[in-house]
């Protein structure tokens, strides 16, 4: 049944993008969760992954910063490059990779430490700031970019876990951008948030575009339409269709995409 991926002309894939995935397979034990997926990620557009639950979006996303390494039974095949370098090469340092390819998780997961510490932790372990003043500046800049500075500037010592869910998620985004990554992966970042908090994060994603290559997994079709310029539709581990967001939503070419967009399954 798996047909070849329908790739729209406007997104024609060529090497030279920030990150490229080619024929990526992921197995959990015997079970294949991602099947021969190829895609490009770059900083002048936001890429959205959509598809029914269990189709392998999160699994595929986690290949880009090798978070699947932490799952014993997961095996990744194929090739993923960052700036033309294979990230699964044994010579690739996974710690540096994860600093360059940041991640925001579905459930807000601030450290049980102060707001300041949450942001400062990444820059500190990577040695990005030596003086306290530099660190203060990084913290302020990151929180400002995440649209959180005005709300928390007077209580940086308070615990990051004592904030509202939406604030926590923006804190996590601020934490991710504090180490100045090149790519940001977001796995359903708004699924635990109310519409207002969601709108703020969508705004934030829009602001960040251009500086960071952003990939966002979402179940919310409107959200994909609002924030992304490119959309990839996954089904049962296959990348079914990949194209400009507008084309995917208004004029899908594959049957399965059309069925999903129009709500016939999923």
């Amino acid at each position: 049944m798996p047909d070849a991926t329908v790739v729209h002309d406007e997104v024609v894939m060529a090497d030279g993008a920030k990150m490229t995935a080619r024929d990526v397979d992921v197995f959990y034990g015997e079970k294949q969760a991602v099947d021969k997926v190829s895609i490009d990620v770059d900083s002048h557009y936001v890429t959205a992954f959509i598809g029914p639950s269990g189709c392998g979006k999160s699994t595929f996303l986690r290949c880009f910063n090798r978070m699947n390494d932490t799952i014993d039974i997961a095996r990744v095949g194929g090739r993923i490059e960052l700036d033309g370098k294979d990230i699964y090469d044994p010579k690739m340092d996974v710690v540096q990779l994860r600093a360059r390819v940041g991640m925001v998780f579905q459930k807000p997961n601030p450290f049980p430490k102060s707001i300041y510490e949450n942001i400062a932790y990444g820059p500190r372990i990577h040695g990005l700031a030596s003086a306290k003043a530099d660190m203060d500046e990084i913290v302020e800049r990151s929180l400002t970019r995440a649209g959180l500075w005005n709300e928390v500037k007077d209580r940086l010592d308070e615990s990051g876990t004592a904030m509202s869910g939406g604030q926590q998620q923006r804190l996590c985004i601020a934490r991710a951008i504090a180490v100045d990554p090149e790519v940001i992966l977001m796995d359903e970042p708004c699924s635990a948030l109310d519409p207002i908090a969601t709108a703020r994060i969508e705004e934030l994603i829009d602001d960040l575009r251009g500086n960071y290559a952003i990939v966002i997994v979402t179940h919310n079709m409107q959200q994909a339409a609002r924030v992304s310029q490119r959309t990839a539709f996954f089904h049962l581990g296959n990348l079914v269709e990949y194209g400009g967001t507008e084309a995917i939503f208004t004029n899908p070419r594959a049957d399965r995409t059309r069925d999903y967009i129009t709500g016939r399954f999923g």
Partner: protein
Amino acid sequence: MSQSGTRKLDWQSKEMQARVRRRYVRERRFRRVGLGAVIIAASFLAFLLFTITSNGIGGFRRAELALDLNYDPAILGIQASDSSEEAAATAVSRADFRPLLASAAQAQLGDSSLVSEGAWLAVRDQVVEDPSLIGTTQRVWVVGAPNMDILAKGQVDFDLAPDRRGVSTATVAAYRTLREEGRIRLAFNSGFLTQADSTNSELAGIWGALIGSILTMAITLGISFPLGVMTAVYLEEYAPKNKLTDIIEVSINNLAAVPSIIFGLLGLAVFLNTFGMQRSAPVVGGLTLALMTLPVIVISSRVALKSVPPSIRDAALGIGASRLQVILHHLIPVALPGILTGTIIGLSRALGETAPLLLIGMRAFVSDVPEGVTEPATVLPVQIFLWSDEVGRGFVEKTSAAIMVLLTVLLSMNAVAIYLRNKFERRW
């Protein structure tokens, strides 16, 4: 289920109400049973504490007799020619104070056996402290003999026939005279908290055993805590999941259930017989108890590490923290309260342990306070065991008094644990 329109289920029906009533009855009964269990447990505890305290409180007091002592250099055998201060001090510490006390007791009390056999020790220490006493006459309170102790504490049953009271009529008469003259008193038994064991119950102290216990616990903690936490971290974070680690895991769990006396045998075989270490030394006791405590710490630390929310681990890894950084900066701080709780539980058990220490020779009679971990020592529970075995009447209350000291140490250890746990506990 109810079809459209007609609802068959009537929540107000008799049956339903009876069901609700039955539920309430069951609920109440269950709560009462629980409360009853708590009350029974609490009263056992209260009974235990009450008997120990009422038996043991006497151990903190002792009978003292007033004697007018003439520190005559001639009787003490100190030459006036010992002019230099140092020479005088040596002479005093070598001097025999026994005849001095015996003659004074004989003359003033009519019987030298009313004074404790070891009473001269405190008198000598006083003179060593203040040599200017030599040549003067002072009224001194000296430790009384055990029969004075039980008379002063009213532990003699006068309803019994005179030959079954345990004290002679003459002693009772002497005691009554002393009381009328105000030459006997019950005073705080400072020796109990500053001295080590003695064959004389009125002189025996708990300090030696307490220091022994502290030294032993220091060794146990110093070895089992780092080893246990490192083992737990390795097994949780680094070890691959395979047959070998499964076997290790099962072994550790089984080790925690091994009777403590087996660890004593192990300690005997390894530390004494193979390495030839000093018998009865805190270092050997500490090592043996560390073997016993290790599995408890490993298991509780693993549970604590396992219960750290995976989202914290993901967050740290996602920002590019190395494995070591994830462990040191995130996992251990969050798991610390649990690790500490397990450590204290293990240490409390080790502190109260007797059997393995008997096997490595800690049952020896030690009359000196240990000054290092390699000197012969005893520990609180072994001291309690030894005293409970003594026939002397004075040792009965000493046993309970020692139990009070042990319980106090245990309670303060738990208090420290609770303090640390609250201090490190974080909410999220």
